[in-house]
């Protein structure tokens, strides 16, 4: 009986893993088959000279270039906003918060993690309207509002990953520097954070993915179909996921739909690129923290 159960369990695990890999392969394969033919210089830069577009000398009107730049900037700004806040909150939760306060914050972060992105988008929109009415009529839903909203969206990932990876650290390691007379803060900076870096990095990668793909938030807070390269953080902008949504809901002919597939492929490649950058940054910081401190 036991033997049978074990065999069954192993087969079941295998099948589950296979399903997962299969699903990912199917999606990627589908995108590649559909997207690769559409992928060319013209899709990205339209009729504009690529070099002068890259140097921002000429505007691109009929290519994906502004959307790519928009998404890239959006991800970078949102993550830059979310990481310091999230890591600090995670450190607080793991190292300083106790008792009632900790339980409360735990609960609140869980709620924050559960808020649907459309609601956060709505919040961003309301914020923009509020600022527009009460402070300056120059403020509209814009790049900055989107970034702030997205930062909120991904904050729980970063807080949690920081907190969990700090809490997981072996007590023996936790006490090493303290026993040498390091202060609590020195212990956190010199020993605990470098140890937790791997976990924090996975949180940041999750956050990058989420920022890059989220459509609901940016739809309500300033992404538009045509805006050109983002020139100011108070202006509207283009973004890849919004473009994909837009084109797939209102395409006029097959060629336009193909551009949507191309855009999806570009979005995935962009994410991969950002993940790579995150890993490299992590390696660099770990090296600095461990061997140069």
């Amino acid at each position: 009986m036991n033997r049978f159960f074990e065999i069954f369990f192993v087969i079941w695990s295998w099948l589950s893993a296979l399903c997962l890999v299969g699903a990912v392969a199917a999606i990627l394969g589908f995108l590649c088959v559909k997207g690769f033919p559409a992928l060319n210089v013209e899709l990205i830069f339209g009729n504009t000279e690529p070099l002068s577009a890259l140097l921002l000398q000429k505007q691109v009107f009929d290519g994906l270039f502004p959307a790519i730049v928009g998404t890239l900037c959006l991800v970078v700004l949102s993550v830059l906003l979310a990481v310091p806040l999230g890591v600090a909150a995670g450190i607080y939760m793991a190292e300083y918060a106790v008792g009632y306060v900790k339980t409360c914050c735990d609960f609140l972060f869980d709620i924050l993690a559960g808020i649907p992105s459309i609601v956060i988008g709505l919040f961003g929109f309301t914020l923009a309207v509020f600022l527009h009415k009460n402070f300056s009529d120059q403020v509209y839903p814009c790049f900055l509002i989107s970034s702030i909203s997205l930062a909120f969206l991904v904050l729980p990932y970063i807080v949690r990953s920081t907190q969990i990876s700090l809490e997981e650290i072996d007590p023996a390691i936790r006490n090493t520097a303290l026993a040498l007379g390091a202060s609590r803060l020195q212990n956190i900076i010199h020993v605990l954070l470098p140890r937790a870096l791997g976990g924090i990095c996975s949180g940041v990668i999750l956050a990058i993915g989420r920022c890059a793909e989220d459509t609901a938030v940016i739809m309500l807070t300033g992404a538009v179909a045509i805006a050109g390269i983002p020139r100011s953080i108070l202006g509207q902008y283009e973004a890849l996921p919004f473009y994909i949504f837009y084109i797939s809901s209102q395409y006029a002919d097959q060629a336009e739909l193909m551009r949507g597939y191309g855009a999806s492929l570009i979005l995935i490649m962009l994410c991969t690129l950002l993940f790579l950058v995150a890993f490299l940054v992590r390696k660099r910081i770990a090296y600095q923290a461990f061997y140069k401190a």
Partner: protein
Amino acid sequence: MEATLNINNDNVTGINSEVTDLSQEKDKVLHKKRETVGNPFVENPRMTCRDVFVYYGDKMAINNAGIDVACNEVIAMIGPSGCGKSTFLRCLNRMNDTVESCRVTGDIRIDGMDIYAKNVDVVPLRARVGMVFQKPNPFPKSIYDNVAYGPKIHGLAQNKAEIDEIVETSLKKAGLWEEAKDRLNQPGTGLSGGQQQRLCIARAIAVSPEVILMDEPCSALDPIATAKIEGLIAELRQHYSIVIVTHSMQQAARVSQRTAYFHLGDIIEVGPTERIFTNPRHQLTEDYITGRFG
């Protein structure tokens, strides 16, 4: 000539009068202090402990301990598992502060300074009372940086040359210099277990402590590495006081001058190591030493 501890309840609360709550009083009644056999005190002590109680939450882990640590001695703490040796050791450099539920009362002094006084900063205290753990735990940094870490955070050196000097003398004292001098920039985690433990000892002595606490420093090491550490402890005694917790009675006999026997939170017997092992006076000590339990 037996010095016995005063178990007068009024006396115990003399130092920290505000912590006398009911649960403590109850504990004292339920868990009556066993008098320490032998003389736990010395002349010109480095550290003194009087009326020390330690609680984890409501549970008492150390019951009215009083003992001295002399200068240039190795004092061994032995006893069955869970009797509070590590707990007591951690009181001596206030590492118990890091355990949330832990509460220490009583009077512990180093060179006459009360280490639990309100205005005492644990940072310099832990430089004076260093600690070596059971499992070798070097930082994932180079050998050099491991040893240099303490002096750097305590600002013991003005420039690189001085740090170099400290690193070299510490590694020499820890008997690791010959093996490590050509690989100072390689990670400390790449050393063997015994070498790592000597690296940890070097790291602890780099901040010039007066007392070194060792909690079962050899229990993760093979016999050859253990012999090296024991030899090292004997040498270090010339410069430091060493308090060592060990499960090996042979080890206690080999390295220590005095031995304290702990039992369920009490210090049962303290005396010269040779006397404890050849002629224990308390029945519990004798039972433990002759291997009847533990």
